[in-house]
């Protein structure tokens, strides 16, 4: 017997089937002993529940009973929410404050670092702020930027020859 048939038999016992379905089930019960046994079992269980259920009688009237429940709900709603929370230690209170503050600070730092990096990237990478403290060099120096390689080249006509080189015969530089 499959589950669908079992559910149908349950519906039959509970009187939830249409007239035609009830007739089909009745025919089935006449020729299927297993189905008939299940229906019998279900009917017994149903009658046991129905007969065994205790009747509960309220000590007061129905209206008074529900009004008590309503008043209790209203009373709980009026209580402040904070009172329901357990008291926190000083460390727990600090944690509550510091953790979000730390997260905020970290995000701010990341943002600042990002902005700084962006600003640095946007700067002209090949710009050279050439300044000389030598008047002669000022007049005779030129700057060349190789944008492909990022190389900056500054050529000094001064010192004209041997400011960096040695004049010994054995040495060139």
């Amino acid at each position, binding site marked *: 017997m499959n589950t669908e048939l079992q559910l149908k038999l349950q519906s039959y016992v509970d009187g939830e089937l249409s007239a035609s379905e009830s007739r089909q089930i009745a025919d089935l019960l006449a020729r299927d002993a297993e189905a008939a046994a299940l229906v019998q079992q279900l009917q017994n269980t149903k009658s046991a529940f129905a007969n065994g259920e205790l009747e509960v009688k309220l000590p007061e009237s129905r209206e008074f009973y529900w009004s008590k429940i309503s008043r209790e709900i209203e009373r709980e709603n009026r209580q402040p929410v904070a009172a329901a929370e357990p008291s926190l230690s000083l460390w727990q209170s600090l*944690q509550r404050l510091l*953790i*979000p503050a*730390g*997260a905020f*600070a*970290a*995000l701010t*730092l*990341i943002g600042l*670092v990002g902005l700084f990096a962006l600003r*640095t990237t946007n*700067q002209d*990478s*090949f710009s*050279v*702020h*050439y*300044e*000389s*403290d*030598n008047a002669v*060099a000022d007049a005779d*120096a030129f700057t*060349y930027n*190789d944008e*492909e*390689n*990022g*190389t*900056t*080249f*500054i*050529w*000094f*006509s*001064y*010192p*004209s*020859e*041997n*400011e*960096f*080189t*040695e*004049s010994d015969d054995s*040495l*060139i*530089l």
Partner: protein
Amino acid sequence: MKFQPKSWRWAAAVVCGVCLFSFAASITRAAELKLEAVLIWGTNDTNSPDPNHKLVGPKLAKTLGDLPIKWKSYFVVEKKDFSVNQGATEKVRLSKECEIKVKNADGASVELQLIGKGKPVGKMTKDVNKGCLVTGGNAENFTSWFVVLRKKE
């Protein structure tokens, strides 16, 4: 899945920790610059009279070869590796007559001061993360000197 406030706090604490650690690490890394200064002699001769001179490497040869002033050969006269902390200045002697002062301005930009025969020749700044800084001038017998300052790789 039920939302657990405590787990959220722990996750936030971990994220904060990681962020602060990364930030501190980036600051530490940016503070010190490892640099290389090279004094080079440029000539049209294929050989140097000084047997200690060696030709520059291919990368430096290409850098120098791309400059508007060209020579057939570039010989390394002196090469010095050094580090400069942020805000500090390092003095590096490259030859008897050539000295440089390098200041780490902000962890990326350096201020290079050339000193020839004890006299300041020029001062320039450059972000060494973007490329190298090459300075040069005339030398004896129609040759040239170059000082290359670049970030040590």
